[in-house]
């Protein structure tokens, strides 16, 4: 959900912001640092995809709640696994918020998209390089709404009652709907290409990436 009146929860003091960024970057670094990964080319490709994801968020920011990152996190989680998918989510959020605006909400956005990446890794969204479109569409729709509600918690402060917060969520439903529609659109248009790109350029960490046997493939 996006607030429409210019308030997006509390901004952070420089020290608080530094701590938040340090924690998030540290988490992303730990998630990425696995001993058996990554050739220079893979690092380059993953970095470019992360930059592209952040850039797409920045470019589409004026279109309220059109968030390509939700779909990308699901697919990245599905293809690369939970660890690297979550690292991707954290980095893309931090990079884009460095331009858009950083604050308390960054924590919620970063964890929200990391959760989407984690979910993507557990839902068998990509099998043998093929996007399971029905499953992805359903996941994208649910993840979009849950992500919005999770991020909305960043504006909940001590003076806000439960009823007022519920009213706030209710007001945001049109924004949630747009997030869902956008995620579905990005899924059908871009998800397979993103998965193909990663498969072609990055050697998958099979220890991490779930291997789904044919007999448990979703319909």
């Amino acid at each position, binding site marked *: 959900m*996006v607030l*429409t*009146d*210019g*308030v*997006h*929860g*509390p*901004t952070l003091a420089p020290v608080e912001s530094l701590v938040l960024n340090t924690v998030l970057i540290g988490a992303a670094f730990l998630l990425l640092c696995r001993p058996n990964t990554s050739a220079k080319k893979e690092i380059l490709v993953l970095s470019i995809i992360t930059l592209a994801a952040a850039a797409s968020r920045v*470019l*589409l*920011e*004026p*279109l*309220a*709640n*059109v968030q390509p990152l939700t779909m990308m996190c699901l697919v990245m989680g599905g293809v690369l696994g939970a660890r690297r998918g979550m690292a991707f989510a954290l980095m893309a959020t931090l990079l884009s918020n460095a331009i858009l605006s950083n604050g308390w909400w960054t924590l919620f956005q970063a964890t929200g998209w990391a959760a989407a990446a984690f979910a993507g890794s557990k839902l068998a969204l990509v099998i043998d390089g093929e996007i399971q479109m029905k499953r992805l569409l359903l996941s994208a729709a649910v993840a979009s709404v849950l992500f919005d509600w999770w991020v909305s918690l960043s*504006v909940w*402060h001590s003076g806000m009652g439960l009823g*007022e917060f519920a*009213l*706030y969520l*209710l*007001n945001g*439903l*049109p*924004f949630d*709907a*747009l997030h869902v*529609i*956008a995620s*579905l*659109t990005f899924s*059908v*248009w871009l998800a397979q290409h993103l998965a193909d790109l990663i498969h072609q350029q990055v050697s998958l960490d099979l220890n991490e990436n779930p291997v789904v046997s044919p007999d448990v493939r979703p319909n």
Partner: protein
Amino acid sequence: MKRLLLLLGLLLLIQPVSAAQIGWNVDLDNGYITTAPIIVDDQVIVRTSGFWSGDQRPHVYSFDLYDGGLNWKYKSESSTQHDMTPLLHIDSGKGDCGWWKEMILVGWTDGKITALDIEDGRLIWQTQTEIHTWGITGAMAIDGDEVVVPTRKGLSTFCLADGEENLRVDLPELGWRNGVSISEDYYLLGNEEGVLNKVYKNGIVENQSIGDGKIRHAPLQTNAGVLIHLQTDSGSKIFVDGQLLISSGYSPAIPIMNENIVHLATGSEYIILDCNSNCSIVSRSEFHSNGEITLRGEEAWLPRNTEEGGWGVFSNTSLIRVHQTNADTYTTAGVGFGPSQSMALGSDAGIMFVSYQSELDEPNQSDYFGIFIMMIIIALSLVSLRYAAILDLANLSKYLLLILMIISAYTLPQVANAWSNLIQEQNQGGDDWERPWDDDLAESCEGKQAVHIQLPWRDYMTCGLEGYETVEEITDAAAASNGIVIEKEQHDLGPWLLSFDGVKEEGWEFYIDGKRAMTGISQTTLKSDTVVEWRMA
């Protein structure tokens, strides 16, 4: 390629982000601001005054109204006293003694009069009048092609074209802030002995003792007679044609008249007189003002010469509010008003605050944008039809989803606003909200639109507003009239308020009649008695 084109189309949906800042301030380096800045087209011109020592000297500055950039400045090398003669803007013209450019006339306490080119501050001409410790301290006036200058012990007129002196009359008594007023046949000015001098244009002088006191303003020529606010040892007295009308408090302000309604003030009250036939008292309100009163429409702005400072804004006879800045102190300077609801003001703190109404919206931009969106949708629909014809449901659904997303994104502001209004209507009920004004302001606030802005150092209450349709409009107006600088950012959903006077803190929230608004400032509409409150998140 097809996808690239679609992506480009999507990116074109993005409207540029622009920031609108509708005010600025500038510290004039130790000098007081004792007289009103003046706004001419896109220039703000102000002078500093003070008791100068060392290398410090008074200046006249010209700034760009909209961005605060310095256009030019002029420094007096020889004026070392407290300069308080109001600046005079002169349009270009010609008369018997020649033609002149548009210029600013400045009277100095070293007795000089300087004519400055308004374009670049260049000195056009300069002339010298007499000095008796001080030089010129009163308001000059324009009479045809001449400037009439009240000097310490006399009166001179100078040609606007070249500063040539046309008339000089010596008077026996000293004057101080002894502004001059003009009629068809003569000039009027007072002095420190309570004498009103009538100087005919042929140089003949008549005088009349008004009383035991000092005349420190330009006499006002009303329908009811010449009005003098005499400063006395025990307070002040207001005379009309030499007859005492009323007594009042200490240290009179410089009175001002519009259509024979006279506005006066002292250290204790603000007085309005109706002098259309015989001067009668319209109102007397408690207020402390000793400086220049400024009129703007129905409003009178009175500089408050106390430590708290600010300007009392009266509408008719009621004090609507006290306009304040974050550098308030003793204040005697009036307010300069100009185009785009601009205004410039300053106090003894020497900081000038300028604000104006910004124009963010460009007409018809949204129309072109809507047409563009429509063209994209039509193109995508044609492609969809093609896939529908061959029953390619996979591609058909892709295009339909894209169309749906574009339409949703484009209509989201309207949809969200309508949805929010619907929810707000459903949730209206009783509340314990207390209106943000005290009893003193209740009369002017009740039943009309009002804005309350809570800055960390002060609350600004603006009452008695009418006709504003959105929160953005009324907030802009309230901020402009209070000299508060607003910073906004333009987003697709509409403008987003970032800060008041640079204060961002944790963001700003606005409340409508005590309830937190859920829509944007340009979408939230107002009723005729809506109270908008801005609070820090």
